[in-house]
């Protein structure tokens, strides 16, 4: 059974590595992300949001939902730590 699991995971890993050869090259100007998403952010950030820092504009404005729930994840992590390890003696 262990051998079977090893073979299965090795085949999956080999398939995943094989699939990465299909990816666009690092920083390829012809990749889909560079053709549609990036130019839009680079050209429009200043005129749409007036935020000089493009990264912050994407983080908090264009991807506001993402950041809201990132923050909620941090809150949940803190609450979990309190619930799991805090033993308050009153």
């Amino acid at each position, binding site marked *: 059974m262990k051998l079977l699991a090893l073979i299965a995971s090795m085949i999956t890993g080999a398939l995943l590595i094989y699939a990465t050869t299909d990816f666009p090259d690092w920083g390829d100007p012809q990749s889909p992300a560079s053709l549609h998403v990036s130019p839009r952010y680079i050209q429009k950030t200043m*005129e749409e949001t007036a935020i000089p820092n493009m990264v912050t504009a994407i983080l908090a404005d264009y991807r506001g939902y993402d950041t809201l729930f990132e923050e909620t994840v941090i*809150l949940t992590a*803190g609450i979990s730590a309190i619930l799991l390890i*805090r033993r308050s003696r009153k």
Partner: protein
Amino acid sequence: MIREVESIIIQTICRILIPFIQLFGLYVIAHGHGSPGGGFQGGCILAASFVLIVVAFGLQEAKRRFSEKLVNLFSSIGVFIYAWTGWMALLLGANFLDYGRLSKILPADPVHARYYGVFAVEVGVGITVMAIMVSLFIDLVTGGEHEEAPE
């Protein structure tokens, strides 16, 4: 457990250094949209100053300055600020987190209202990250066995 070691050198240096660390943390949060930085990084720097208080002055002193109740309150207030910035836009008739519509209540045009909306959001992130980092540090370093500081 943290053992208290009274060292006049460490305490004096920390007393000088901590205000500057906190000022730098506030700068990183407030300047998040102009330069590298933002709520997450600035919150961590602010939390580092409280970690320094714990290391130099002991846990009780740190808790007298930033009590457990206040830490828990702050960690929720940050998310509250963020979510309500989104809800304000929703109540004013735009989509959730569409800060442009905040121009109705802010003295700014829609483009600059987005700027201020992002600033409010960064402040919310900074408050939550600071409080959660302090809470995690105190819990992990004491194994969860710590008491509220006497008033």
